């Protein structure tokens, strides 16, 4: 989905009304972020996306989080990065700023940082409760973050996350950057979704400049996106089973993942396909022997994968770990507008490829799997079904790949332009807002990962489960740390 921005500056009353409509479930929150002297809020209602802007008076704006909980962390991040206060917010603790920076609110009014107060984790009271602090450095080869468990024996009473350890200041680095440099930064927001981020950034820029990538580029982008989805879903399915100590599945899906990355490398010269998508099109065409490599991959997956699904489904000891574990109730998925397999495993029928939709998916046929159970098992099954859909999409893409140019020029416009894009990564929808200045450089770019609305649900999902099932729940979410922390 791309759009040139119909962005509306609203009054305090209108801002509050929008918050109330979110709370009532009439709209979904797509994003809430800071800018120079103002905050923006992106909303989804039906097929329409709207962006509201509130000019901060005295450095403050009416809290959305006060009535709509999913906004709370976004507001805390605005507080840490821009210094704007969310008036009336139930939680004003910093977010992302862990007290190690030299500057306070680095994207807003920069001031020398003061010594931070100790971070107050939310309390849990009761007899025989104990706390288990985990991280930021975890026991596996994964990203860093802090989890504070309060447990009663084996049962988790409360989990609270503290994130921000991999905050690199990406949005600040983007300010003043040229499109090429900013595109590279966007492509490194979350390495596992580098293609999706590059597409989202490119689409936002194209919307702002009112240009359109040629059809061949759109199809090649979709091919890359589906290869990325396949690779990640294979990795996730195996890793979830591995956390239930079912290593055989991990070994088998590891082979499929490696074959997928090799096919990507054969097509586009990079295993993760970094920097292959650029504003205006794609940086390189598919290699001459690329389609054959992808067809061989698809054939191999179709041969092996059904047997692995059967293995997953018929292994009682594995099912015992995944079925009814880590349930996200549908009302929470709806409230948080959770994207990807987290939302779709809990009844939220949303996929940015279909709605609002973007090229070439409007010309391709595919189904969006939705389940209601919301447990680890459902999140595995959504991935399984999406693998099947991606294979079907790849067939269609290779069949219909149009000839022609792979990019159009990206002209400077001589005026300030804004654009927005909503793109479906393997993990869920990514929102990108971009404002390009007269000189063609980035004035402001905001990247909102799907994880922002999934991390809080992990806190809910683990409640009442045993500590030993946390890795399983966590892996079934596979939220991004880097994409969230930026």
């Amino acid at each position, binding site marked *: 989905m791309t759009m040139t921005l119909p962005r509306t500056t609203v009054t305090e009353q209108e801002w509050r009304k929008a918050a109330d409509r979110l709370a009532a479930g009439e709209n979904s929150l797509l994003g809430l972020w800071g800018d120079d002297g103002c905050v923006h809020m992106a909303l989804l209602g039906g097929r329409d996306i709207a962006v509201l802007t509130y000019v901060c008076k005295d450095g403050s704006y009416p809290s959305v989080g006060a009535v709509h909980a999913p906004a709370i962390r976004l507001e805390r991040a605005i507080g840490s990065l821009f210094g704007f206060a969310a008036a009336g917010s139930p939680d004003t603790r910093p977010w992302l700023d*862990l007290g*190690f*920076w*030299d*500057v306070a609110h*680095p994207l807003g009014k920069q001031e020398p940082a003061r010594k931070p107060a100790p971070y107050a984790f939310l309390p849990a009271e009761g007899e025989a409760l104990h706390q288990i602090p985990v991280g*930021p*450095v975890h*026991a*596996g*080869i*994964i*990203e*860093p973050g802090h989890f504070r468990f309060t447990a009663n024996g084996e049962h988790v009473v409360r989990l609270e996350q503290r994130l*921000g*350890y*991999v*905050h*690199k*200041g*990406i949005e*600040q*680095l983007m300010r003043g950057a040229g499109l090429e*440099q900013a595109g*590279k*930064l966007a492509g*490194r*927001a*979350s*390495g*596992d979704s*580098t293609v999706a981020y590059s597409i989202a950034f490119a689409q936002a820029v194209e919307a702002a400049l009112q240009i359109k990538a040629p059809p061949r580029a759109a199809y090649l982008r979709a091919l890359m996106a589906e290869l990325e989805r396949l690779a990640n879903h294979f*990795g996730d399915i195996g890793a979830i089973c591995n956390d239930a100590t079912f290593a*055989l599945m991990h*070994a*088998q899906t*590891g*082979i499929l*993942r*490696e074959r997928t*990355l090799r096919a990507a490398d054969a097509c586009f010269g990079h*295993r*993760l396909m*970094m920097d292959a998508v650029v504003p205006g099109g794609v940086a390189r065409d598919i290699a001459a022997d690329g389609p054959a490599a992808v067809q061989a991959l698809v054939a191999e997956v179709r041969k092996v994968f059904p*047997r*692995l699904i059967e*293995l997953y489904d*018929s*292994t009682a000891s594995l099912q015992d770990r995944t079925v009814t574990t880590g349930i996200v109730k549908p009302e929470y998925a709806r409230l948080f507008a959770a994207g990807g397999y987290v939302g779709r495993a809990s009844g939220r029928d949303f996929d940015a490829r279909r709605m609002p939709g973007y090229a070439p998916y409007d010309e391709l046929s595919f189904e969006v799997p939705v389940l209601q159970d919301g447990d680890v098992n459902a999140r595995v099954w959504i991935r399984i079904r999406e693998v099947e859909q991606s294979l079907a999409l790849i067939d269609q893409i290779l069949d219909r790949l149009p000839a022609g140019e792979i990019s159009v020029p990206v002209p400077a416009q001589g005026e300030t332009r804004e654009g927005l894009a909503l793109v479906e990564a393997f993990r869920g929808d990514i929102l990108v807002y971009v404002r390009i200045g007269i000189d063609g450089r980035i004035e402001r770019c905001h990247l909102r990962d799907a994880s922002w609305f999934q991390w809080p649900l992990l806190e809910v999902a683990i409640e009442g489960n045993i500590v030993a099932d946390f890795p399983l729940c966590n892996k079934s979410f596979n939220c*991004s*740390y*880097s994409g969230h922390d930026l």
Partner: protein
Amino acid sequence: MRKTLLESLTHGPLTEPAPAPDEAGLAELAQSVDRAARARLGRSLSIREVDAGSCNGCELEIHALSNAFYDLERLGLRFVASPRHADVLMVTGPVTKNMREALLRTYNAAPDPKWVVAVGACAANGGIFAGSYAVAGGVKDVLPVDLHIPGCPPTPKALLAGLLALLQTAA
């Protein structure tokens, strides 16, 4: 399950021959490893991976080292969960200011002798993230680094070549 297991017995192994040790890596390491350390470690190294701020791209390729194609453990290299069990810290990413202290603590928790391998373009000097208010720099700005493995992210082959250079020199 039985069919999958039987088939994996009959078709040959997927594992590919290991690449030659990285020449540049060997030269870099020649200075940092002494004979006493070799005697103590034998021919195996335990690796603790630390993400000090990466985009997660490097982690994906480090994970790939354990798949059937690269099978790291056949070479005497293995990943461990605790820095207390580690001979090598494999650090990815620019070191963010938020991770600097955690990285230092992890380093201090690993027993001597130990080596630090900086993985990826960001770990070398902060890469594309250098100069940010939130980034302390490359790994060498925080810890003594014995080996750099370049790439964004390095391919599993490049990672293997670098680690083999370390193994040849250290073990």
